């Protein structure tokens, strides 16, 4: 289980040359959250995720961990890279077998007690048994998605960011992905999903945000989501 946490990203701004993508927007993420973000193409959804993951340097961003005073993004970047995981729309598979890909992640988590059995359990959890020696590059889109989620499981991230995780997946793969994400959320991992198809995540989502005009949409919607989030947390506690 992931310990309860809350992390707030404030005053997020980002431009690419003269193209402003994000402007003084904010997002708050807590354990057990599943936030679904929608928005038009080029609205800045992926950029937002990459800033949260520590992969994209923002023009400006302040981060507050739990109730601590805000700190600049740059100072907390290492921490973001350690505790936040970003899954690309098409997960990258390292050269070699499926097993090598999963072992790579396991090696990066020194907290894993028995690496070999943890890897095997994770493979079984994802339903990838029997595919260990198969070249990762030759896996189907759904299988690659599961490999990416298996790697995430072995790294125990506090926040899992997914960029269009169900795009181009058949219904069976989509259901399996949703089930895996549900397990992440229930274990305390916060999930942020960027999608054009929010309906897929309606059962999973604890809040829905919309990115428009460089910002996470209007205060009233943000406030409504906060209320919604709180009510979900209340119901979980009960």
């Amino acid at each position, binding site marked *: 289980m992931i310990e309860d946490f809350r992390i707030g990203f404030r005053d997020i701004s980002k431009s690419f040359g003269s193209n402003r993508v994000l402007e003084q927007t904010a997002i708050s993420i807590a354990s057990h959250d599943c936030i679904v973000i929608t928005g038009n193409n080029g609205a800045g959804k992926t950029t937002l995720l990459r800033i949260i*993951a*520590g*992969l994209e340097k923002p023009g400006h961003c302040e981060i507050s961990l739990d109730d601590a005073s805000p700190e600049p993004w740059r100072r907390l970047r290492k921490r973001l*890279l*350690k505790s*936040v*995981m*970003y899954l*690309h729309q*098409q*997960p*990258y598979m*390292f*050269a070699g077998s499926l097993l090598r890909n999963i072992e*790579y*992640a396991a090696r*990066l*988590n020194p907290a894993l007690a028995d690496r070999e059995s943890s890897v095997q359990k994770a493979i079984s959890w994802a339903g990838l048994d029997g595919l260990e020696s198969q070249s990762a590059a*030759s896996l189907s889109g759904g299988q690659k998605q599961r490999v990416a989620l298996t*790697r995430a499981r072995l*790294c125990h991230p506090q926040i899992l960011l997914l960029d269009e995780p169900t795009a181009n997946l058949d219904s069976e793969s989509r259901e399996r992905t949703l089930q895996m994400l549900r397990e992440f959320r229930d274990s305390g991992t916060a999930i942020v999903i960027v999608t054009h198809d929010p309906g897929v995540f309606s059962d999973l989502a604890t809040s829905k945000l919309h990115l428009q005009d460089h910002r996470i949409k209007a205060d009233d919607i943000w406030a409504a989501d906060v209320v919604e989030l709180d009510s979900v947390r209340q119901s979980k506690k009960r």
Partner: protein
Amino acid sequence: MDVLLTSTAEAFRLLFSGNPEIWEIVGISFRVSSMAILAAVPPALVIAFTLAYGSFPGRRFLISLFNTFLSVPAVVIGLTLFIILSRQGPMGDFKLLFTQTAMGLGQFFLCLPILVCMAHVSLQAADRAAWETARTLGANRLRAFFTVLYEIRFGLMAALLAGYGRIISEVGASMMLGGNIAHYTRNIPTAIALETSKGAFAEGIALGIVLLFLAFVLNSLLQYVQGKGSINP
């Protein structure tokens, strides 16, 4: 034609009789060039990586500069280093001129741009998601760096072989910086130049055969490596 045939026959006899002078020259060539390329690989990889993944002013200028260095003749590198290493030069006190170290330095600067440019192209062609996936999984910069290098290993091998092929066969810089001193700085290309000027074609051809054989081995290796990285199963 007779001269060519008899010289070639004599060349094979020299090679297979284990002529110590010939093999000593071959040994010097391999030692100096191997040290040069081994010294050039780490900085070349770091430079290539910085150029591919970095974002800093002057990046494009540096890329153009390294591409320009690809076409700099060996004698120009030799001349520049000759001036730097000669007694009046800024590094004259080190007394490196006409040593194997000087030859190695020349070869280092000859293969560095090849390694940088070819590695840079491989890195640019590689999916940036490899670096990001490694980082987001918790790998530190160094680990992610080696992860990406492994992903582009076929391109790197090609760069290594091309660089080695360039320096083992170059004559200009080695002649100027090594001085072609027998048993010390005489390598295959400088020895071929000398033997040819003396009219001792057999020795020159024998060394030429070694170079040709090496070129064949390097190219075969390159084909094998590129075949391994083929997109076809």
